[in-house]
């Protein structure tokens, strides 16, 4: 009976650690930090509130599904990466920028890393990656969040 509390504590710690390791949105070794991941629910909430400023949103994947987002195209293509570069060049470095792809889970996505690295390199301070852990269908469209069509 004595060791019950430590055992429970260990199980709890193991569970928490597993959750962090297995998390699809883990930021270890990525060009973004955990705090630069924006939850879809938070962006949807912002877009649904017309009284607060909205970020500049760029689609860097298959289609500009999210309301107000600007279609850049897949940034695995250099031409589209250049398009993103030209588009953000006019923004102040403090601008709130959100990029998203949503083609597939982050591990398979060829678009998010080149785009985020570009924004890092250009010296932006408030750029975020939308945390679409599965894809744009499951994490945005199916949740009835605001869309462009």
């Amino acid at each position, binding site marked *: 009976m004595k060791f019950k509390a430590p055992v429970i504590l260990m199980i709890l710690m193991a569970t928490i650690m597993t959750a962090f390791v297995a998390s699809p949105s883990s930021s270890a070794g990525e060009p973004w930090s955990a705090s630069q991941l924006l939850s879809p629910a938070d962006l949807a909430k912002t877009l649904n509130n017309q009284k607060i400023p909205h970020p500049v949103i760029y689609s860097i*994947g298959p289609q500009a599904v999210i309301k107000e987002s600007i279609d850049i195209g897949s940034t695995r293509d250099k031409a589209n990466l250049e398009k993103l570069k030209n588009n953000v060049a006019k923004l102040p470095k403090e601008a709130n920028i959100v990029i998203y792809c949503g083609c597939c889970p982050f591990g398979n996505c060829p678009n998010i890393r080149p785009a985020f690295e570009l924004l890092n390199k250009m010296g932006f301070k408030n750029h975020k990656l939308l945390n679409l852990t599965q894809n744009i269908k499951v994490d945005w469209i199916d949740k009835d969040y605001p869309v462009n069509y």
Partner: protein
Amino acid sequence: MKTGLYFSLIFFCLNVITLKAQVTGLEIGNKSPEIVLKNQKGDSVALSSLKGKLVLIDFWATWCSPCLEEQPKLAKLYKKYNQKEFTCGTGFEIFGVSLDSRQSSWEEVIAREKITWIQVSDLKFWKSPVAKTYSIKALPYNVLIDRDGIILMKNLHGDELEKALAGFVVK
């Protein structure tokens, strides 16, 4: 008397089997929902036009990396099994359904990958009614159907898909 009872029982069982096969749905044993979409040239192609063959309905898109990686593997399977005789169909066909939104990307990849099997799309991305009909949540996704359009297997890739095809070849 007994013989009559046996015949009635067999007749009932056959009816149940036939009835199950006629149900249109997404479960194994159901009849696959019809798909009629346009190919790259703008001509309508119906899934049902492939009746008689073993068919893989391949849901993919050019924006989906794992789908692109899978295309050369499908090409190998297509070449190997296209003319084979199967226990559930004569010849193997692939019915590629793309969830693309840009005609140019779609055509470019078909040409680059030298895809020779049927390709259709409504270019409606995730808004495509076919994605809803087949309850697709992520790509790639596929459905293997027999000569009558009955679903045999779902979402098989790589070695698993090849094993499944090999298993249906008439020895």
